[in-house]
C-alpha cells in the first residue's frame, strides 16, 4: 500500500470542504495532480494545494492507497466522503461529514469529529478515538435509507441522533450518547457502553439497541419481556430485554410481528 501524507499548513478563514481527500480521488494520481484536486472555501473554488502540503505517493487503485492527514483539521469538512476502499488516518480532529456516504475501506480519526459523520454509510470501518457530535451514522435529511452497513466505533461520547433511520451496520459508542438513538430505525445495531438520555428507540421499527448504563427517560412504547444473556462486542452480560416501539408500525415475518429490541444491561 502506498501512502500520501496531506498536511494542513494554511488555515482557511472560514472552512474547507475537502471532498476530494479520499483514496478514490488520489489513486493513480501524481502529487501535483492531487494538489490540483478541487476543494471549496465558501464560494471560493480552489485546489487542495492552497491549504495542504502533499507528500508521498498514491497507489494505483483506491485499495492500495493510504492517506495520512496531519494538521488541525477541525475546520475541514468531508474528508473520506464516499470513499470506497483504501485507508485514511486523520491525526487529530475533523469536521462535518467525515466518512459520510462511506462505501468501504478504513477511516481512523484519532481526535474528535463534528456532526453528520458517517451518515448513510454503506460499508467499511470508521474509528473515532475521541468524541462524535450529532447525527453520527444518521440519514441525510428526508432519506428513509440511513446507514446500511459497516462499522462505526467511537472511543468517547456521541451527540444526539445516533443512527436515525438506520437499516444496517453497527455503531459502537464507548462513552455516553445524547437524545434520540435509533429513531425510525429499521435495522442495524447500536451499542452504547455508557449512559443514554431519553428517547431511545422512538419510532423504531426494527433493529437492536444495547445500553450498558442508564436511560434517563424510557419511551412509553417499550415493553419489558424478560432478561437475556447476550454477547455484545466480545463480552457477555445480562440484559433486560424490551421490545418496541409498540406505537410504531411493524412488519410481520412468517406471521410473527417483528419489533425493535432494546437491551439494557442489568
Amino acid at each position: 500500500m502506498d501512502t500520501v501524507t496531506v498536511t494542513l499548513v494554511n488555515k482557511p478563514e472560514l472552512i474547507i470542504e475537502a471532498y476530494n481527500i479520499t483514496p478514490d480521488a488520489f489513486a493513480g494520481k501524481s502529487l501535483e495532480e492531487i494538489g490540483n484536486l478541487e476543494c471549496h472555501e465558501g464560494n471560493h473554488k480552489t485546489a487542495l494545494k492552497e491549504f495542504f502540503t502533499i507528500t508521498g505517493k498514491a497507489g494505483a487503485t483506491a485499495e492500495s492507497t493510504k492517506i495520512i492527514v496531519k494538521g488541525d483539521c477541525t475546520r475541514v469538512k468531508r474528508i473520506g466522503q464516499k470513499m470506497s476502499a483504501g485507508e485514511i488516518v486523520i491525526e487529530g480532529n475533523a469536521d462535518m461529514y467525515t466518512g459520510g456516504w462511506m462505501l468501504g475501506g478504513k477511516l481512523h480519526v484519532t481526535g474528535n469529529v463534528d456532526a453528520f459523520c458517517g451518515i448513510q454509510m454503506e460499508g467499511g470501518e470508521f474509528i473515532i478515538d475521541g468524541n462524535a457530535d450529532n447525527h453520527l451514522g444518521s440519514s441525510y435529511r428526508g432519506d428513509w435509507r440511513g446507514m446500511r452497513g459497516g462499522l462505526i466505533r467511537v472511543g468517547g461520547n456521541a451527540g444526539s441522533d445516533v443512527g436515525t433511520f438506520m437499516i444496517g451496520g453497527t455503531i459502537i459508542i464507548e462513552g455516553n450518547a445524547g437524545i434520540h438513538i435509533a429513531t425510525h430505525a429499521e435495522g442495524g445495531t447500536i451499542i452504547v457502553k455508557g449512559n443514554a438520555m431519553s428517547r431511545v428507540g422512538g419510532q423504531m421499527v426494527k433493529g437492536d439497541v444495547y445500553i450498558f448504563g442508564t436511560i434517563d427517560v424510557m419511551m412509553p412504547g417499550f415493553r419489558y419481556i424478560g432478561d437475556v444473556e447476550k454477547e455484545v462486542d466480545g463480552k457477555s452480560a445480562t440484559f433486560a430485554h424490551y421490545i418496541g416501539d409498540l406505537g410504531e408500525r411493524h412488519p410481520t415475518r412468517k406471521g410473527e410481528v417483528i419489533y425493535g429490541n432494546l437491551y439494557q444491561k442489568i
Partner: protein
Amino acid sequence: MAEYLIKNGHVFDPILGIKGEVHNIAIRDGKFVEPSALTSSAKTIDASGKTVMAGGVDIHSHVVGPKVNVGRLFRPEDKLFKSPLRQPKNARMEMGFSVPSTFKTGYDYSRMGYCFVNEAAMPPLHSPHVHEEIRDTPLIDNTAMPVLGNNWFMLEYLKNGEIENNAAYTAWLLHATKGFAIKVVNPGGTEAWGWGLNCVTINDPVPHFNITPAEIIKGLIETNEYLRLPHSIHLHGNNIGNPGNYTDTIDTLKLAEGYSPNCDFGRDQVIHNTHLQFHSYGGDSWLNFESKAKEIMEYVNRQKNLTFDLGVVTLDETTTMTADGPFEHHLQSLNHLKWANVDVELETAAGIVPYVYGKDVKVCNIQWAIGLELALFCNDPMRSHITTDHPNAGPFIRYPRIIKWLMSKASRDELLHSFKWSEKVIGATNIESIDREMSLYEIAMMTRAGTAKALGLSHMYGSFTEGLAGNVAIYDLDPENMPSDPEMIEKAFGRAAYTLKDGVIVVKDGDIVGDTPKSTIWVNVKVPENKQVARDVSEKFLRYYSVNKDNYSLFEEHLHNPKVIEVDITA
C-alpha cells in the same frame, strides 16, 4: 427578430401529412411562414440527415403548483448527488431529479424539443401560486387546468341537474384562476376523502352530496360542451391504481357514449382519460395482478370520442402526487414512506408519496408493460399520447426512453428479459407478443400533433402550418439511416440538435443557449349573465371559504405574458 430557414430536414407533420420527406421550414416574426416570405437576412439551419418536428406539446404533466412544490420541498434526498451541475449558459441552477425545480423543468423540456406543457391540476384556491411558478418556468408555454370534480358548487348544481348554472360557475372559475380546462380527479372520491372515505366505483354515492361519480362525469361533459371549451374534460377516474380496476375504467369511458364534441377547436373527443396505464389493471390482488391493456384498448379503439395519455412507468425512484387524496393515503399504507396531504376547502385535495418502481419488482414491471401496451394496441396514435403522468409513473425526462421502447421491440425485449421475474411478467402481460414498432411519424402524433389537437390548441401548436408558433425540434436522427442501436434514439430525443421556441434558438446540441419569453394560455368564456350563480359565489365565500372572494380571483399583475383564448357562447 431573426428569421430562419431550416433546410433539408426530414420533416414529420401529421397535420400536414408530411411523413419524413425533405422540406424546408421557414420562420419569421416567431411564426411559421412560407419560405418565400423570408427576407434576405434569414439565417439558415442545416437539418440535412436530421428529423424535424414541430415543438413538443405535453398534454399532462405536474410541473407547477402547490402539490408539485410540496413534492420538491419534502424530498431533499431527491436532490442529493442527483442534480446536474449548472451549465454555463443557463441563467439559473437546476435542482432535483423526480420533482425538478421550475428552472430545471423548463430547461429539460426544452432540451427534449418541447415548447408547451399543460399543468395537469390546479387547485383553484391556489391559482396565484400556480401562476407564480409558471412565471419561473422558462422556455415552455403553459396552461393549467383547475380541478373541478369535487367542487362543492359543481356537486350541488349537478345534483340538481343545473348544467347552465354549473357552466356559468365554471366560466367564472376559469376566469378567476386563469385556467384552461376542466380537470376531474377521482370525482366524488376526493370529496369523500374529506371524511377519510372514497368513491371506488362510478356508482358510489358521494357522502352528504347525494350524487354519484357517474352523474358528475356526465354533468361535466355536458358543461364542457355547453361552454364549447377548446379541450374536453380531462379525467382521472375513480379507483386508480388498484388490481381489477379496468372494469371501472370501461364503465367510466362508456359514460362518453352518445356525446359528441361541441366547439370550434377541432378536437374529436369528449373525454380525455389521463394516465390510462394506472386504470388498466386486472387481477384481484397484487399477487395475480395482470395487464388489461388489450381489453381497454379494444373498447377505446371502437370509440371515436375518446383520447388518452399513457402514464408509462419508467422504473425509476419518483414522487407520486395527485388530487386523488384517498389513493395517496392508500399508497403510503403500502410503502410506509413519508406522506403529505393537502385537502383544499370546497374544492379538492392532494396527496404526495415518494415511490420506488423497482426494476426487480414484478408489479412494477407489469405496470411498465401496461403503459407501453396501451400505445402499441392503439389504432390511432393521434388519440394516444406519451406521458409519464410526471412525476407519478416516472419523471418526464424519460420520454425519450419511452419513445425508444415504442420504436424498438429489441429494446423492450432486452429490458423485459432482464427482469428478475421476467417469466411471471410475460405471463401477466401481452408485451412480449407485440411486434409493433412505432414510426417517427406516429411518435410525432403522440407527442405534438395529437396532443395539440386533443387540447384544442392545434391552431397554435403541433404542426408547421403557416401562422402557428415557430416552435421546432430538430433531432439528430436520420430517418433514412436509423441507428441500429436503440440507445441512439433515446439520446437523440433527449438532447435535441436544435429547439426553437417562437423562432428563437433556445437549445443547440442538447444545451440551453438562449432565452425567450414564455406565455400563459387561458380560456375566457363569455356566458349569459347569471345572477343566481353570482349570488351563490358571494354566499359561499362569505360562509365557507377562508379567504375573501375578491382576494381569490387572480390579480392581473400576477398573470404573466397571458394569451387568452376567447369563447363566446352568447353569440
